[in-house]
């Protein structure tokens, strides 16, 4: 059981708090690129304090290398802190918009599947619908697998965002 939706030992979810200065994203991306790590997803948003941003980065690669990357990211002047939340008690969600090709005949079944995953229809036309799902990455994967029987025309996923549970700061 992997509570945070970790796929395997090589996928890590990092949370990075940064000062809102130009170039900070490029500097962080450089550290990953130089060590040959692929960034699977990246979300940047404002944090509670206006001068700072919060990044959530999912990356794949060997754990030893990642530890080094975390230390090097922490070393960047504009990074306040960078933590690996892999294996910790956290809430991890992502949002997906899925455009499915559905005629009137298939519509009901598609909606039924969506409802099971707590996804909602946010656009509906004669030939298509857009479903919006907010869930763990695994649940979204499962939803997509079931929707494959219809034609998935377009797919957008935000990438994961995380927050530590309870009093624990992220």
């Amino acid at each position, binding site marked *: 059981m992997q509570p945070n939706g970790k796929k395997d030992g090589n996928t890590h979810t990092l949370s990075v708090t940064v*000062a809102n200065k130009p*170039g900070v994203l*490029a500097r962080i991306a450089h550290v990953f690129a*130089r060590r040959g790590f692929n960034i699977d997803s990246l979300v940047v948003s404002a944090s509670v304090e206006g001068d*700072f941003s919060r990044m959530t980065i999912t990356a794949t690669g060997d754990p030893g290398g990642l530890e*080094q990357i975390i*230390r090097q990211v922490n*070393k960047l*002047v504009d990074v306040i802190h960078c933590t690996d939340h892999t294996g910790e008690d956290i809430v991890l969600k992502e949002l997906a918009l899925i455009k499915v090709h559905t005629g009137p005949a298939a519509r009901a079944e598609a909606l039924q599947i969506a409802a099971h995953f707590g996804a909602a229809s946010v656009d509906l036309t004669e030939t298509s619908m857009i479903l919006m799902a907010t869930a763990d990455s695994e649940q979204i994967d499962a939803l997509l697998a079931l929707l494959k029987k219809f034609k998935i025309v377009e797919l957008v996923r935000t990438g994961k965002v995380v927050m530590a549970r309870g009093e624990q700061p992220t």
Partner: protein
Amino acid sequence: MSINKLDGAQALVKCLENEGVEYIFGIPGGVTIPIFDAFVTTGTKIKFILCRHEQAATHMADGYARATGRPAVVLVTSGPGATNTLTGIMTAHMDSIPMIVVSGQVLAAMLGKDAFQEADIYGMTMPVVKHSYLVHAPNDIPRVVREAFHIATSGRPGPVLIDMPKNVSVGPFTADLRAEMDLPGYQPQPEAFDKAAVQAIAEALSRAVRPVILAGHGVIIADACAAVKLLAEKLNAPVVTTLLGKGGFPETHPLSLGMLGMHGTAYANKAVSECDLLLNIGSRFDDRILGLPALFCRNAVKIHIDIDPSEIGKMIVPDLHCVGDARLVVEQLLKQTSRLDTTDWLKRLNGYQRDYPLQYRRTDGLKVQHVVEEVYALTGGRAIAVTDVGQHQMWTAQFWKVDQRHNWLSSGGAGTMGYGFPAALGAQFGRPQDLVVAFVGDGGFQMTLCELATACVHKLPVKVFIMNNRYLGMVRQWQEMFYDDRRSGVDLEGNPDFAKLAEAYGARGLRLKRTADVRKIITRALEYNDGPCVVDCHVMKEENVFPMVPAGKALDDMLITAPGKRRKTAAGEKQ
């Protein structure tokens, strides 16, 4: 012009002045004309040194910084002026040198539009700077300059780039010249090291039978030299130094084993291979000192003291470590350690020193080692020694014993050919009273020899010994040893007559061709102080550097002498 109404360029000059800047090294260009104008209009005391190439300007600043321990400043124009500094910035970054590079930039409104002499130097330098700035408004200048100096000099030092668009230089400045820093993500706390970790290190030391102290550049940067000396004497522990750690512990001290690594002394490498505890103070376990990392110090407790947390476990996973300022940590350690009896261990190492000394024959012909030893003897070892990169660098590192920090300047991590000569000039600017000798190769010297002009203009009495073997010698050595002597791209045919070339610039040019003349010519060079003196030393073409740890071999697998002739491995067997 009223000084009350400054523009951005004038504010920049004032701020640099407030940081105590003495010299700025560089070359002007279109977008930096306002800054050069501000040198005049502010009547600043800062002296601008006009170099002949921007790369050389960065090395000159680097040499100034290494010889004085103070940050150095470079000023170049946009585009090619800025890109020419990349090698020097990377050299400073690899060796943790505090340097501020101010580059002019095109008007902010033209950024990203391929304007004349526009280069995204902010983006290009990102992987090789400690931090960088693209200044947006004149009023940001005091904060940016303050932060740049703080970042460059604190924690683990490094280069900082300040990219100044022309509109920022000419725009009106209306703020206070003193500004607060705003660096929430940069709070180095060298004094906040883990006391429990130091206690654990002290306990490990008390159990050591065959300890070795590895002194790196961090010892010099943190001025931990006195503390490390006390610790070594208290523990009776031998000390090996890295290339950049030379001067951190006196190499004439009986406990010094000299430099370790690929071309280190046999006894230093044997000490490291056979020790039961390695205390690394301020070295980043560079690959040139490890041999085969998996076999490095394989039976020893490995301890790493470093100010940079990202160095812990990067190359070698230590058994114990402490992140902090080398001086403060070692001073704390001194309080908690007691004397060790290492008599047997030192006896064994003394045996190695006797059996495997650094050696060469003076009778074969003129050798770099001979010249280095003679210059050392004639200067009493008190000169600031600067090297370029290659064979001569390794020989100088082997034979030139450094007793004081800031007296040894060499490009380590980057291995930048062309570094030595301009760095020596920078050192002479920073320490005008001290003797500066530079050992360079004929290859490296030709990469930055245009600075002969700068040296002559300022009458810098630097002695430059060109170890001229008409080869790119280190590559030739590798080709001979590992590529069946298939020589490719290493013959420096077309070398000029360096003595004549020096004279053409107005420097003194001397030639050294015969072993018998070594002392005479060096004395003549040392006696000339009206400007630079270049000694073209025609050394043997095909001498190789030994000992050598071949790439991919363990440290104790080193070749102590040339294979084929009188091959001896560390184990002592003849082959």
